[in-house]
């Protein structure tokens, strides 16, 4: 008989004298039987089962902005799965707290991260949202006129505590396509301001980019003084849309009742994007002072 090209007969394989397997045939036996068997097993095992990943769980909340406290609901309607989450910015693991009921948020700035696990599928990617508490009372806001299609409810859109979702048609965002956007915040009274927050949207698929640069000014001694600035990198490897809450620091705090935020848009959409060479958009839904 022949197995994998090795011709042999059973009685010839075993030496009649010593009852041991003949050396030459033993080597050939190894080569021609065991190795192919291993190869067969390997190919069978790799073709055995598609290994799918879970999709990200849902974070459900009416707005990412709140006055005193809020609750975040998490959902994933797939049997035999567990949502695990963190509130400290760490990536959730199977040892992180298990979601069982809406999570209460009270701090000024909370980054909620969640992931879903199961025994059948690979763990999902992380979904994240940042929840932002109200700061110093803001009396009014003026801003560069937004694009007609994305004018929300006017300037008040930026201080109504509504927003923090990636839905651009929900009326919570102001969308701009001008080269520079200016926002002036009038506080209810003059007080020490330590931080300024701006919530932006990044959604490359909708041609919404982060600004190239943001400068923050505080009104002091009859003029706006530059207190902080940031430049932004556009990351072409990022998928999907996300809110980007940016915080600026006023060193040692400044007593003022007027703040100005100047956002400079990316002049031309970069080469790696389908809209290259065109004007970009920026979207803003809320500003705060602390």
């Amino acid at each position, binding site marked *: 008989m022949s197995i994998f090209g090795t011709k042999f007969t059973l009685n010839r394989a075993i030496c009649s004298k010593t009852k041991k397997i003949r050396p030459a045939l033993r080597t050939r036996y*190894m080569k021609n039987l065991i190795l192919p068997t291993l190869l067969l*097993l390997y190919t069978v095992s790799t073709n*055995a089962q*598609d*290994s799918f990943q*879970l*999709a990200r769980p849902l974070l459900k909340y009416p707005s990412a902005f709140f006055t005193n406290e809020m609750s975040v609901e998490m959902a994933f309607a797939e049997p035999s799965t567990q949502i695990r989450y963190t509130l400290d910015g760490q990536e959730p693991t199977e040892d992180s707290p298990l979601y069982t009921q809406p999570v209460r948020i009270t701090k000024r700035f909370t980054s909620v991260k969640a992931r879903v696990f199961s025994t059948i599928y690979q763990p999902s990617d992380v979904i994240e949202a940042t929840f932002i508490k109200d700061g110093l009372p803001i009396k009014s806001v003026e801003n560069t006129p937004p694009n007609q299609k994305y004018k929300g409810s006017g300037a008040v859109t930026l201080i109504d505590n509504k927003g923090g979702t990636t839905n651009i048609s929900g009326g919570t965002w102001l969308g701009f396509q001008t080269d520079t956007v200016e926002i002036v915040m009038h506080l209810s009274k003059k007080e020490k301001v330590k931080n300024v927050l701006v919530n932006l949207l990044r959604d490359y698929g909708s041609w919404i980019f982060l600004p190239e640069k943001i400068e923050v000014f505080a009104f002091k001694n009859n003029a706006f003084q530059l207190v902080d600035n940031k430049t932004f990198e556009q990351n072409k490897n990022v998928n*999907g*849309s996300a809110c980007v809450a940016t915080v600026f620091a006023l060193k040692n705090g400044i007593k003022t009742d007027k703040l100005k935020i100047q956002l400079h848009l990316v002049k031309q959409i970069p080469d790696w994007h389908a809209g290259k060479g065109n004007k970009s958009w920026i979207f803003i839904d809320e500003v705060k002072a602390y």
Partner: protein
Amino acid sequence: MKRNEFVKASSLGLLGALLPVQYMGKTEVILGHNNKRYKINTRWSQADVARYPVNNCHEMVQDKKGRILLLTDETRNNVLIYNKNGKILDSWGTEYPGAHGFTLFHENGEDMLFICDNNRHQVIKTTIDGRVLMTLDYPKEAGIYTKAEEYVPTETAIAPNGDIYVADGYGKDYIIQYNHKGEYIRHFGGKGDTPAHLSNAHGICVDLRDKANPCLVVSSRVQNAFKRYDLAGKYLETIDLKGAWVCRPVIKGEYLYAAVLQSNNSTGAQSGFVTILDKNNKVVSNLAGSTPQYQGNQIEEMYQTIKAFQYPHDVLIDDEECMYVAQWNSGKTYPIKLEQV
């Protein structure tokens, strides 16, 4: 001697290490809910990518011989013809760069195909072998288009009397009705703010499940809904499929099936799945999607739960109730077959 023993020992060791790998993924993946559950075979297509390449796999139909026909916008072979085991039997088509819609109609015992081409701005009727029988340009007599480029037909549906309904899903979202000879009858739908209007009228089919009241089911994909009209274009109702960017409705037996291109909670992120509605147009199963839930008559938002699909674009249900899913923008992958369990 020593070397042989070493070889033997390490081979057995490797064997021991590999066996568990085979058993690890043993729990079979079953997708769907209620009595519409399926196991998935991502390796169904046996097409050699060098001989029969695809670009976007847009739509599929089954002919009277039981063959599975796939429409792709790859002009080397716009139509690939498979047997049910995934083997390529034939191919044709090089003149359809915008091949998108694909509908089969039995006309006097023969299979006729209707192809919608986005780039040519035309609907083309062919025999099963690709011989062109009729070409329909944009409907000048409707008075709603000034030039061909405004008309981007995505789908056709053929009524039992042969009337042709064309969905201009990437143009002005009108449904254009012609008789079987291609003569314009009327148009309806279009963009607007009332329930009768449409936003991305991506697909259309004729629904004969209620024989006394045949109707049309039209996708309004951006609104995550289907809309029903009677055969004369009168708006009947909206079937809300909150969260699901539904492609064309496909009716087989009592059920309505649709590929969902993506989930509204995760757009632009390969978040597609497949949805199945029963004869009352209630969602009973989502393959790779969330468990269907209703609060009274109001559907809960649907979304992808398992990343088994990227951007499903069409489903085909064959004569054995097996499902095939064709995908758009999914790495030029071939259709996936699913079998009901």
